[in-house]
Every structure is written in C-alpha cells, then in structure tokens.
C-alpha cells in the first residue's frame, strides 16, 4: 500500500476511464445514480409525409425508478466491520459497512422535501442494548432487536413512536404493494437524537472506494473493485455490558427529525427501517485483522502425530507423517478391509516430477510399499477423482471423447491400411496417396500371386480358350505375367503401364483419314 489516492472532484467516476492502480485506493465523494428515483416518461413522436398526406404518430411509455427502500439484496452488504459477533478492542474505531453497489447510498432521496444532491439515505447507527426497544424490553442476547412489521406499521406506528414522514417513495410503495413487510428497529427517541448524524454531516459519512481487484479473491459484486462505504459516527466506548449493536438504517422520511432540526415532542421511540444489523463486543481483547494474522499458527501440512517409540516402525511412521502421509481405511478389490497410505496433492515439501506413461486404470497408479506391506493409494485416488470429475462435466466429456475419437478413427484406418502386409503400422499410411499405395501392395502381394500362382509358371489369364475371339489382338489392360512381376519388383506402377499401353494401342488404331493432321478444319 503506497498510500491512498484522493479524488476531490466528487464527480461520478467512470469505471472504464479510471482503472485501479495496484496497491492504491481511490476515494470518491459519491456516485450518484445515473437516473435519480422518480417517475419518468419516454415520448416518441414521428410524423410521416407520404402521397401528399401527413400523418403523425406518438406513443408514451411511463416508468418509475425506485431504490431499495425497505430491503437490500442478499449480496449488497459485502462486509460489516467490526465483524459480527467478534470481540476486540475497537474503542478507537468507527463501525462501517462495505456495500457492493457503488451508488447504493445515494439511490433514494431522503425526503420529505428537497435536499442537497449527494446526501446519502443510509446511516449507520451504533447503539447499546439499552437504547433499543423490543416491545418494552431490550433485545434478547444474540439478537439485534429487529422486528418485522407490515408497511402500515412503519407509516402509522403505535402512538408515542415516531415513524418516517410520508415521502413519494414510501407512498408509491404503499399504493403498489400495501401488503409488503419490512424489518424495523425501535430506538429510544433520546438515543436517536443523540446518535443520528445531522443533515450536513451525512455526506461525510459515506463515500466510494475503488481498489485493484486482481490480487483479491473474486467476489460476486456488480463492478469488481468498486465499493460504497458507509461509516458510523460513534465510537464503541462506555456500554456497561461492552455489547454494541449496529444498524444500517434508512433515513427516508426523517429529514425533518434529524438532530439539527427542531425536536418533535411527545415521542419515546423512533421506528426506523433496519437494512442490516449486527452486534459485536468491544472490550480489552483484541480481535482485529492484524491480531488474527499475528495469532495464526504456521507449520507444515502434516498430521500432528508423533509415535512415542524409537523402534524401526515408529521411525518409519514418523518419516511418512513428515512427508505428508496419513493412513486411511482401504477396501481392497478382494473385499479385504485394510488401511492404505494416502497423501493429497498438497505436499509439505516439493516433490520431483516422476514422468510415467499414462496410467490406464486407477489400479495402475496404486503403489505397493514392500517395507510396510501396504498400498499407497494417493495417485490411484487422484486418478479416480480426475475421471469422476470429468465424467460429471458433460460438455467437456463429450468434447474430449470426440477429440480422441477422431484420432482413434485415424488409428483404425491406419491399422486397416497396413494390415495387408507392411511389417508394422506406420504414420505413412495416413498420407493422401496411401489408399492407392495400399491397393497396389495388395495386388502385388496377394492378388497377383494368387492369380499367377506362387511359381509364376501357370499363367491363367486368357490362356485356355479364346471364347471372345480377341486372343490374337493386343488387349489393352492386360499385362503379361512376366512383365507384371518385373514391374512390381522394380516398384513400378502397373496402372500407369496399362494406361500407356492403351494410349499406344489407340494411336495405332486411328485410321489415317481422321488423324488430326489431315482434318479439314486443321489444328
């Protein structure tokens, strides 16, 4: 942390134009919502002139922008400090909440009546249990004193309890969802007037922070790195039971009752919407972040067991435990209940890579330890969970299977092409001319010997009779057995020779009068 970066401009920042700097925190006075709460209408007008006739069209779309008047979303509160339920010496801390939406503290106009923009509607009230009232008694231990009431219970509270003045937002809500309930807290009137911020103080108790989110654990927030921050104004000092209860309350409708305004008379309690609440103890025992970090126990990732004995077995167990091993129950394939060594992927000390050919089954990764007569199931367990996780991930399993299947089909092709007689499969069988080559080899090695006989002395083609009367002619397409054998021995292409012979025979048979040289049209 090289120091906070201030931004006194206070204008709504733009996430795209102001990247966070690692190790720095940028402060902004506020981020006002792009569209303040209220009623809006979009009017679309269009006039068309066609065929000398004018026509105009108009449509109106009305919509309403509201804030989260009565309740926050589940992920809106990122953190509450001092932490809920914690115990520490927080007497010089102001409590605060970190909110995930950077414009949240400014989304609801506080009302009634106009108020300066940039005045937050959220306030963090730090109270003691004596200052909160739940039906005449302080809140029970472990609770923060919140009550759930219908909206009417907030707008028209029991006599002697001050509720919010009706604002546009609350009246709209009552008209739209009269049955909605809300979480409220009843604070003594005296405590409210003593603790609540004055109108002019409110903007100073909320601001926006931007941090670099890349070296933090990824949090589910709308704009990573952007947070709004609402602080309380009271130090946790002086409560007789050291117990403090913080309430993030809505001040909507309370603009006229804040401590800088004249006090309304005749009230003993104030009913406020409580958006979040927690309690903590501030005493002499420290419990803050720095304290927790200092108290962390460091050590190797091993089972803290030390055998008492000094014999060979104890020494072996000691050394295995130091290497991160533990002993787990193991059911062998024969059903025998026994135990096996196991250690996970996280080792107390670096382990050298020991490259192995791929293991085809979990059993292949089992290691037998002759010294103890036990199996080491570490890698077998890793193999099996890798298989199960991948099977459970459908899209990847399909994708992987298809990828491997395309290579497997190439292997099958390769085997089929080379099965006919090459000494063994080779990659050349996948070459583009491989089928032709394979066919030639098939002819050379199997068909020709079968037809001609092993000794070559029994030429069979066209020999015994001449049923077609072609015997005396030169027959394109047929090769003498001896020619064929010579050709194949020299690695020549019988197809090419047949082709050449056919061309030569055709040339000879073309009559002179249709030869190209004497054609009337010439060439």
């Amino acid at each position, binding site marked *: 942390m090289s*120091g*906070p*970066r201030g*931004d006194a401009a*206070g204008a709504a920042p733009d996430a795209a134009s102001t990247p966070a700097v690692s190790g720095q925190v940028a*402060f902004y006075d506020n981020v006002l919502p792009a569209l303040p709460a209220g009623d809006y209408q979009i009017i679309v007008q269009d006039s068309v002139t066609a065929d000398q006739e004018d026509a105009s069209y108009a449509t109106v779309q009305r919509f309403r922008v509201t804030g989260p008047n009565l309740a926050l979303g589940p992920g809106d509160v990122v*953190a509450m400090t001092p*932490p809920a339920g914690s115990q520490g010496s927080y007497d*010089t801390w*102001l409590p605060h909440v*970190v909110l995930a939406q950077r414009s949240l503290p400014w989304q609801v106009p506080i009302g009634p009546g106009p108020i300066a923009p940039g005045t937050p509607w959220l306030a963090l009230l730090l109270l003691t249990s004596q200052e909160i009232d739940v039906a005449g008694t302080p809140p029970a231990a472990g609770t923060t004193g919140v009550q759930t009431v219908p909206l009417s219970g907030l707008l028209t509270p029991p006599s002697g309890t001050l509720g919010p003045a009706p604002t546009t937002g609350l009246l709209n809500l009552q008209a739209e969802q009269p049955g909605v309930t809300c979480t409220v807290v009843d604070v003594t009137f005296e405590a409210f007037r003593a603790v609540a*911020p004055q109108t002019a103080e409110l903007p*100073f108790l909320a*601001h926006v922070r931007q*941090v670099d989110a*890349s*070296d*933090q*654990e*990824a949090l589910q927030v709308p704009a990573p790195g952007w947070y709004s921050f609402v602080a309380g*104004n009271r*130090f946790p000092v002086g409560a007789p039971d050291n117990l403090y209860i913080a309430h993030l309350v809505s001040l909507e409708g309370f603009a006229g009752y804040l401590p800088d305004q004249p006090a309304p008379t005749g009230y003993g309690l104030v009913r406020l919407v409580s958006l979040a609440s927690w309690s903590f103890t501030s005493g002499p025992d420290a419990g803050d*972040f*720095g304290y*927790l970090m200092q108290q*962390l126990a460091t050590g190797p*990732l091993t089972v*803290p067991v030390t055998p008492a004995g000094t014999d060979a077995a104890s020494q072996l167990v000691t050394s*295995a435990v130091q290497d991160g091993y533990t002993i787990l129950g193991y059911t062998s394939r024969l059903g025998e209940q026994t135990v096996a060594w196991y250690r*996970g*992927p*996280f*080792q*107390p000390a*670096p*382990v050298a*890579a020991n490259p*192995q050919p791929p293991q085809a089954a979990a059993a292949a990764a089992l290691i*037998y330890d*002759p010294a103890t007569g036990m199996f080491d199931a570490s*890698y077998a367990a890793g*193999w*099996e*969970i*890798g298989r199960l*996780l991948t099977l459970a991930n459908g*899209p*990847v399993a399909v994708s*992987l*299977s298809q*990828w*491997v*299947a395309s*290579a497997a089909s190439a*292997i*099958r092709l390769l085997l089929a092409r080379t099965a006919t007689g090459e*000494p*063994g499969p*080779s990659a050349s069988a*996948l070459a583009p001319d491989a089928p032709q080559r394979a066919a030639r080899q098939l002819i050379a090695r199997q068909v020709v010997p079968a037809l001609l006989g092993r000794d070559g002395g029994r030429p069979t083609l066209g020999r015994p009779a001449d049923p077609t009367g072609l015997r005396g002619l030169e027959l394109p397409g047929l090769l003498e057995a001896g020619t064929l054998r010579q050709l194949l021995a020299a690695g020549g292409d019988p197809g090419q020779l047949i082709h050449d012979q056919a061309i030569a025979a055709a040339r000879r048979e073309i009559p002179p009068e249709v030869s190209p040289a004497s054609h009337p049209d010439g060439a």
Partner: protein
Amino acid sequence: MPAAMPRHQALRQLAGDPTARAALAAQAGPAPDDVSAWLADLQALAGVPFAYLVPDSRMLPPESIRFFAVDPNWTAALVDGALSIAATTAPAAAASEALRPGALIAARQAAASRRRAQAAPRPAAAADEPATPTDEPAAGVTPTYSGFLLRSAAVADWPGMQVNGYADPQAATLALPIVRLERLSPTILLALFAGMVQRVDLTEPGQHLYFGVVPLSGGLSVPLRSVEPATAGAQLAGDSTVTVSCRPDPNRTVLDVTATVAAVEQGLGVSSLSPSGLGLQLLQPPPSQTFTTAVATAPAQADPSQATP
C-alpha cells in the same frame, strides 16, 4: 507374404512411434478449448473435494496457515483419470495416449494465457511473469504450483483479503502470479501460485480500511493527510495532527463531524473539505502480515513411493 502383426502389438508400436503420434495429432487437430481449459482447472485442483486435498482435519487446525507444494505426479494422475474417459476401446486408448502430450501443453498454455489476461491491467506484474514455458518433453509439462491454505475467522470477516506471493523470502520482489485464489468454505482460503512461493503477504483489503482515530493525551486525534491530487494521502510534514471533537454528551462518544471537518479544514488550510477528503484523514493504515513459507526447497525424502520396485 509377412504375417499380419497382432492388433495389440500394432497399437503398442504405434503409441511408441513419434512420427505416428505427430500424424495422429495432426489428424485430430489441436485440443478443443474447453478440454484444455478443463485440464488447466484440474491441474489447479479445481473441483477436487476438500477431503482429497486435506485428508485429515488435524492437518489444518482452526486459526492456522499451512504452506505446501503441489505434487506434479498427483496432478498427472488426475489428468490421466480425466483422459481415461475417452479410452473406451483399444484404438481410443492408443489415441488418448498419443494426444496426451499435446493436451498437457495446451492446458499449460490455457493456464498461462488466463494468468496473462488477469495481469493485463498491471504491466508491472506482467513483467514479473516468467517467459512462456518451453515445451520440454513430458517432464516439464506439468506446471510447478505451490501455495497455502488459510483457516481463520479473518477469511470470513474480511472477504477479499489481498494476497501477494513472492519467490524471494527476504523482500517483496519476484512476485508470483496467482493461479487460484478461492474460499473453499466460509473460513478456509486456498491460494495457488505459479512457481515456488517463499513469502506471502496478507493484507486487509483496501475497501475495508476502517475509520478510526488515535488516542492522544486524553483526547482523540487524527494525523493530517494531504488532499491535493498530486500528493493525496501523504502525511503532512511535521506529523501534525488535529483534535477530534465529540458531541457534548457524557454518556455517548459520538463524533462531531461538523466540528471535526472545520478543524481539519483549518489544519490543512483548505476552504472546503470534501467527504472523500475527510475519509483520507480518518483512514487507518491496513494491517499486513508477512509469512515466510516453511516449504523446504529440498525434495521430500523417504517417501514410500520411491520404494516401488
């Protein structure tokens, strides 16, 4: 005519033939993106149940931090198990074996490009990233990861804790890229770094920096910090402070924001203090804790697996 080679023998010969492997890999094309991303996830142990990572809860007691090195053989077994799902026939098993080196290289590149994308807005960190790993044969393909497990109430109470790992045990230099930083349970944080981590700094996250004051001779005070844009946050020369006023209520210690703002304005000599300007004054420096890892650089000794015949 030579006798046809038995099928299993032919498959074995194929698997051992580098030319055949290359031809097969060319035939199958590069690893699909989702497969290489998945293998990269597996190498970072994503999704592996916690009981496989820490088989005994005594290894990670409450309020403790444990450093470790990731066993490359374990992740290799994990990846073999993953690839085995496609090995449904003998040719597919041979194909899977032939494609494995390419898949591991693709997984490594996927992990590296993910880290680069993460570090992109920070040129300083990107410069620390070691050069793209050379594609050595099998031995170098499994990445070197190390990290820590932190089990503490601080994980739950200070979400978004800032984690920085360094390969240098002495100073905050040689920053290591973070491969994975994830809360495995409300109180357990797992961090994995690419490389052998020697030093880790855990810092309270910036968004949680709290407001507070310094007790000073019976009263409360805050140090004055500059609000000028160029020097914002720097403490003023002479360590000047202003007294923080409270409302006149004997039973409650409530900050008088109006009076405090006026005092700070006077102390800084500015006409109007903005809310963020007051925030700078009340800010308390974030606690940070440095841990030097207990992971020794010497390889583990006497491990039963080395006794394998």
